[in-house]
């Protein structure tokens, strides 16, 4: 296995709702290596989002250990977690989560505001990422002027703008029709081919089969961890040439 990007040991998350304890995760231990493409599956309420939030440093575990890129981040204060999210992780959400009054370019620029990147480079970086997802001509459109697939591509460009090592996506195709969903998956495929580690949550088998590895959750427990047969229906060849190789995303987006 490659160098671990994500390493969890007995990760537990317990929510307390009105005095009632809800055990969303009951001790998950796993390792995800650099450059892996992992799908997280499971029925609704099985803890997929909770797991993704924890490894995305959006939330902290109730118990257990989480090492990201070799550093223990399970006990970092909020300020440092924000920095980690900014530098190492790109999020893609089911509902796109674009700011409605900012155009595509400004939405993509947003993580740069908090990264200490020189302001002169913002526009160039954002334009490069938009071009990489095929939206160079739409950079001045507002989210409301874009289709769902285009909005999700803007969101992916935003996730990429700080050249993270890790992309986390929670049901990224959940709000899209299947054809648009395939387009989005094509982009993830290409990014993974360039060396970016991807973890995506989905409940669609077709989508999950795009990944190389599937983690199945049930009731907060990891019940199955399997590798995908790459010759199966929707899967593209792992080293399909050409895709993204010439795109600007290719520069430096791989593991640091």
């Amino acid at each position: 296995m490659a160098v671990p990007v994500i390493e969890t040991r007995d990760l537990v998350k317990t929510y307390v709702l009105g005095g009632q304890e809800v055990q969303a995760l009951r001790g998950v231990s796993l390792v995800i290596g650099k450059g892996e493409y992992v799908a997280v599956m499971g029925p609704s309420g099985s803890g997929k989002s909770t797991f993704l939030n924890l490894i995305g440093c959006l939330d902290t575990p109730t118990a257990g250990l989480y090492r990201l890129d070799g550093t223990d981040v399970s006990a970092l204060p909020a300020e440092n977690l924000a920095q980690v999210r900014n530098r190492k992780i790109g999020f893609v959400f089911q509902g796109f989560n674009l700011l409605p009054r900012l155009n595509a370019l400004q939405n993509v620029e947003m993580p740069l505001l908090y990264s200490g990147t020189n302001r002169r480079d913002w526009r160039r970086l954002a334009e490069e990422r938009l071009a990489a997802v095929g939206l160079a001509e739409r950079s001045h459109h507002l989210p409301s002027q874009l289709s769902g697939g285009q909005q999700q591509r803007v969101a992916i460009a935003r996730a990429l703008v700080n050249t993270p090592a890790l992309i986390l996506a929670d049901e990224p195709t959940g709000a899209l029709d299947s054809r648009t969903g395939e387009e989005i998956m094509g982009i993830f495929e290409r990014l993974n081919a360039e060396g970016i580690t991807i973890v995506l949550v989905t409940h669609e088998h077709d989508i999950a089969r795009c990944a190389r590895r599937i983690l199945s959750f049930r009731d907060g427990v990891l019940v199955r961890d399997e590798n995908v047969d790459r010759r199966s229906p929707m899967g593209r060849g792992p080293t399909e040439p050409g895709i993204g190789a010439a795109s600007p995303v290719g520069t430096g987006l791989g593991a640091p």
Partner: protein
Amino acid sequence: MNLYINGRIAVAALRVNKLRSVLTMLGIIIGVAAVIVMVGVGAGAQARVEEQIRLLGSNLIVVMSGSVNQGGARAGQGTQWTISEDDAIAIQTELESIVAAAPNVRGQVQIVHGNLNWGTAVIGATPEFFEVRDWQLESGRALEVEDVRDIERVAWLGQTVLTNLFPDEDPVGLTVRIRNTPFIIAGTLVGKGQSGQGQDQDDIIVVPLSTAKKKLLGRPPADPRVVASITVKVAAGASMISAEEHIRDLLRDRHQLQAFQEDDFILRNLAEIMRTQEASSKVLALLLAAVASVSLLVGGIGIMNIMLVSVTERTREIGLRMAVGARGRDVLSQFLVEAVLLSLLGGGIGVLLGLAGSAGIGHFAGWRVLIEPSSVLLSFGFAGLIGVFFGFYPARQAAALDPIVALRRD
């Protein structure tokens, strides 16, 4: 993350709800405008008082006949006069801090010149009068000791008398009749304008003290040396309080008053009189101060309220910004900048409104309104401070949000 970015975000946010932003600013606008007008009116009144004091001389003490018990010093004809020319001489010569002491009598007369006639105040004076009042001659010769000694029938005209009796001729050397006595015009006085009490100081005619007593007062006093008042000029830099004390001690001694007896004279200080005037403009300033502080408080609370609304409305945005790397302090400063921008905009509009209001009051009420740049800057800065103070709580609420909770909210 810097001020520029936060400013851009804030401007965009405020522009989304233009009307709401303006309504929120209203309290600050009114408050700052009231502060500007208040300080302007106050400074104007202060300046006016200071100018009057400078014009009349803040270093003047007036000694009047009579006692406080007699209901002030209405030293008209027939009143018992208790101070004399010799008191004036004693004050001037025996007290070190005194530059000059001018004994006067005062009366009301009709002046006739040809077919014109004019009622005015007459002052019987000695040469010291011109010194203590800092009054220059416009034309003619000065009043001399000999004029008083020889009871000369000469007169000096104030500007108002001059324009009414001699609209277009040089009066020096001409004769007027006062109480059927001919007086030769010896000179004219430069204009002094209105006094602090709104009297026309130029509606006056000056004659030698002795001549006034003998010819112009209805019934000459029994003692030829007594006078109605003595105007005393205190040396520059000397204490007015101790000068008053010295004059009181000297006069009580000269009048042989026992310890249990009250003063048979009254001491008045012009600076004091002026200050009572200043007090009336303070009432208005106080009123404006009340308006200002109430509306600034209300304005501040309004900003706090609208910022809390804004934080609630934009919870998802906050969650998203945090998810992509905004730290608590980035969110805090974003909302703080928005609150401060709101209050500074209100402050700016308030300053403009205040300047316009001051100009309006100055124009319509005829008051002097003095706008100092420092007061404008101060109230503008204060508006910003209100933004910081009342914006801090909502901004902290925003910064304390949990990113996933915020992201899930809709």
